[in-house]
């Protein structure tokens, strides 16, 4: 089948469906936010209703054409990179906020609504949608659900899964079903909703989501601490948690990241520091004020070299600049930037950072690490050049070593980016055979023809 065939056939079977097949349109849909991955689709299709999504899925099944569903293509594991010979089902025109329910604190949206718009809609009436993936200014909620995206607030507020109450899904046979309800308590049968969250478009196409909202925290305070050793930063984090304080975010930068950030953004970080912690507490003003005093004391007790507490919002923004510019500062250094997201139990984080440093040295690659200390999710960032074949081999070896080190520490191969294509080789090792086979069984049951984003998360054994 060619692009022209797809255009003709789809155009004939579905009224008013938007299809792009020109080479100048296919090239820009050949990738998502993942470094070095690309593939050319046969066509890009833009449904404008759930009914059209269902019609496209039915057509694809009959024509035996694989489908990759996609929002705004910001994923970091290759989940929405097209399949050769397949079509892209782009849901970003399904972008309506359907209903904001203040009595039940819920928001019903179409899959293509941008995460930031969801946050803003809630914020405008004093409510709060906590998940804040790094790409939230442009990522869509459908993509967030498909990848079960995290963000900086994971420690206290959890991830996308914790805010999905129900969803509308188009299944592989083109039927439309609702999973979950608007009830806070609901134990009717299997939680199929949870099965679809994080399924990366391999089980169905999410078209609509009912989200849970929270009241907006009344106060927020920010604090930045520097340490002469990563272990001391880790000890401070453990002490804060042990004291019964759950900050909204606890972010860290390692030595290499600190130096890059200072070179790039000149935010006044001591370049001899081994670790920086950016901590944010939110909640009732009195509670926050008390927590900040305790956090500051605990940081000093654990040998923080400096501690700065922001006096106001403007200063908080300045302090947060160090963390916010981490990725930008690193991404400028080399032509190719690969963002990793292995995650370990919090207590293993300092050791894991040491492992990464040793691996970088052993494989002679440039790696700087920053991430979310509170939830053990680290982002070793590999700076390289995809044209340098020899270096790319070393990079691959280093990534394998990082993943193995994380698994050895009881961690996971991905904390928030998803498996997609990037982490596929490691999935069985993490899950074990029985669990891996169970996943394959689920996939075969729900998508017997294997047309929904095939080859993502895992390759089905023959």
């Amino acid at each position, binding site marked *: 089948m060619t692009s022209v065939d797809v255009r003709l056939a789809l155009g004939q079977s579905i009224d008013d469906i938007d299809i*792009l097949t*020109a*080479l*100048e*349109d296919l*090239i*820009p*849909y*050949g*990738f*998502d*936010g*993942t*470094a*070095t*991955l*690309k593939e050319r689709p046969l066509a890009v299709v833009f449904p404008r209703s759930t009914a059209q999504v269902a019609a496209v899925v039915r057509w694809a099944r009959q024509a035996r054409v694989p489908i990759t569903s996609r929002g*705004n*293509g*910001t994923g970091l594991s*290759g989940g929405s990179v097209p399949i050769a010979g397949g079509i892209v089902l782009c849901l*970003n*025109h399904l*972008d309506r906020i359907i209903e904001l329910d203040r009595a039940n604190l819920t928001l019903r949206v179409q899959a293509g609504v*941008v995460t*930031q718009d969801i946050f803003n809609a809630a914020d405008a009436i004093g409510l709060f949608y906590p998940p804040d993936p790094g*790409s939230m*200014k*442009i*990522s869509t909620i459908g993509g967030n659900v498909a990848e079960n995206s995290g963000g900086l607030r994971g420690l206290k507020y959890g991830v996308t899964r914790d805010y999905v109450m129900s969803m509308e899904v188009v299944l592989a046979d083109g039927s439309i079903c609702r999973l979950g309800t608007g009830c806070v308590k609901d134990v009717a049968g299997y939680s199929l909703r949870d099965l679809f969250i994080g399924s990366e478009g391999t089980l169905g196409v999410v078209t609509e989501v009912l989200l849970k909202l929270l009241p907006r925290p009344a106060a927020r305070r920010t604090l930045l601490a520097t340490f002469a050793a990563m272990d001391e930063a880790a000890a401070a984090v453990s002490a804060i948690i042990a004291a019964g304080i759950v900050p909204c975010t606890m972010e860290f930068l390692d030595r290499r990241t600190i130096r890059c950030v200072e070179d790039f953004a000149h935010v006044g970080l001591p370049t001899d520091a081994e670790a920086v912690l950016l901590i944010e507490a939110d909640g009732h003003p009195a509670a926050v004020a008390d927590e900040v005093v305790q956090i500051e004391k605990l940081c000093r007790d654990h040998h923080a070299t400096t501690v700065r507490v922001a006096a106001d919002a403007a200063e908080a923004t300045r302090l947060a600049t160090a963390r916010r510019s981490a*990725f*930008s500062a690193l*991404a*400028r250094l080399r*032509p*190719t*930037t*690969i963002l990793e997201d292995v995650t370990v139990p919090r207590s293993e984080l300092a050791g894991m950072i040491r492992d990464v440093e040793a691996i970088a040295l052993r494989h002679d690659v440039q790696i700087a690490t920053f991430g979310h200390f509170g939830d053990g999710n680290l982002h070793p960032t590999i700076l390289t*050049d*995809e*044209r340098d*074949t020899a270096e*790319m081999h070393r*990079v*691959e070896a280093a*990534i*394998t070593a990082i993943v193995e080190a994380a698994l050895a520490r009881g961690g996971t191969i991905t904390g928030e980016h998803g498996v997609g*294509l*990037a*982490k596929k*080789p490691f999935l069985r090792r993490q899950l074990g055979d029985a669990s891996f086979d169970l996943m394959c069984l689920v996939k075969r049951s729900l998508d017997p023809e294997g047309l929904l984003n095939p080859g993502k998360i895992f390759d089905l054994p023959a």
Partner: protein
Amino acid sequence: MSTPVPSPKVAPGPTRHLGAMDYSVLQQCMHCGMCLPTCPTYVETKLERHSPRGRIALMRAVADGELAVTKAFGEEMYYCLGCLACTTACPAGVDYPKLFEAARAEVEEAKVLDSPKRNAIRATVLRGIFMRPRLLRFVGRLLWIWQASGGQSLFRRLQLNRLLPSNLRRLEPQAPTIRTRFSHQLIRAIEFPIEPKPARRVAVLTGCVQDLAFSEINRATVDVLRANGCEVHTPPVQPCCGSLHAHNGDLASARELARRQIDLIDPDQFDAIISNAGGCGSHLSHYDHLLADDDAYAAKATTWSRKLRDIHEYLVEINFRAPQAQPSPQVVTYHESCHLCHGQNVSVQPRDILRAIPGVELRECGESSWCCGSAGIYNITHPKTSAWLQDRKLDHLTATGADIVATANPGCHLQIANGLHSQGDEHTTVEHPIVLLARAYAAESD
């Protein structure tokens, strides 16, 4: 782990501009998508082809020989406003201006957009009028005679514009009002600071449109520099800076104009070279890149770029004196010229200057750093998108309730003034921040 995708070379030989450039500039885009929500053409269409990362993917495909320089490619490169909002949003620091200019040069070389009309316009405007400053002033003078003699108002009263072809009919009311006196008639070649001992020696660039339609802004620029201890040199006949040429794929003419500019104003003789138009300044500050391969000029061009300053940037840098006049209450909102904020990273300084003026209340508008749709000659080539952006801009500006819209680029100035006029708003005025500052200095002696 991700594996690198080798780039198959299907076309013969690399293309002259994209194919020949340092590949790492193309590669620097990691297609993360952070540029998408800031790109007006993406927001208008929600299609990747019309986004910065989509365009870069197409450029890279051309460089890799996977895509020929097609008409669709050409149209895409000209659908881009060149507003550079993407460069501010880009975490990886992609040099989009360089890519954009190379891509347009590629399009011109491949002649995929050629038509007799387009070629004639380009020959007249780019290689004719805007290469010859005296001819440009002559054309400006003719236009002034037309406007001052009453010819234009008679023409409009008699509705003779119905006789014009449709695109000219639309443009006629947008033509700027030409000033009675051009810059050289307002500014002496050398003017001395108000304080007797000059602390600094600067050159002022008068621009093309600025010279004809906003010469009082140039006068104000000289005034505020004099008020801040500068000896000001303003050569009476200045060539176009070449930004129009570089942005429209004519890099050869752009280089020629840059050389003439450097011949006229030797950067070694000045502490700073001052631009007061966002669009010009952004281009002028890149002469070092433009002439990097020119053995005779590369060194001078590097000095030039190092000394080139936007007027607001320079005033803040030299710790300008706050005017001490009696406050005259005025509510001002600030629209950022794209090439001032995204192209030169000058965003805080114009606001600092406005706030320093006694009586000014600065009210921020929404999307202050969004393009107003002027974008060089974009309002002529893409009227629909331009009008959409103009409306969006006016909505934000009028929502502030400000009496004055301050902006520092002639294209934006005209676009906003024309928009206000066509909405029937005869109250709100558009001013350059430096004109407001000059007025405040002048009011000190009142």
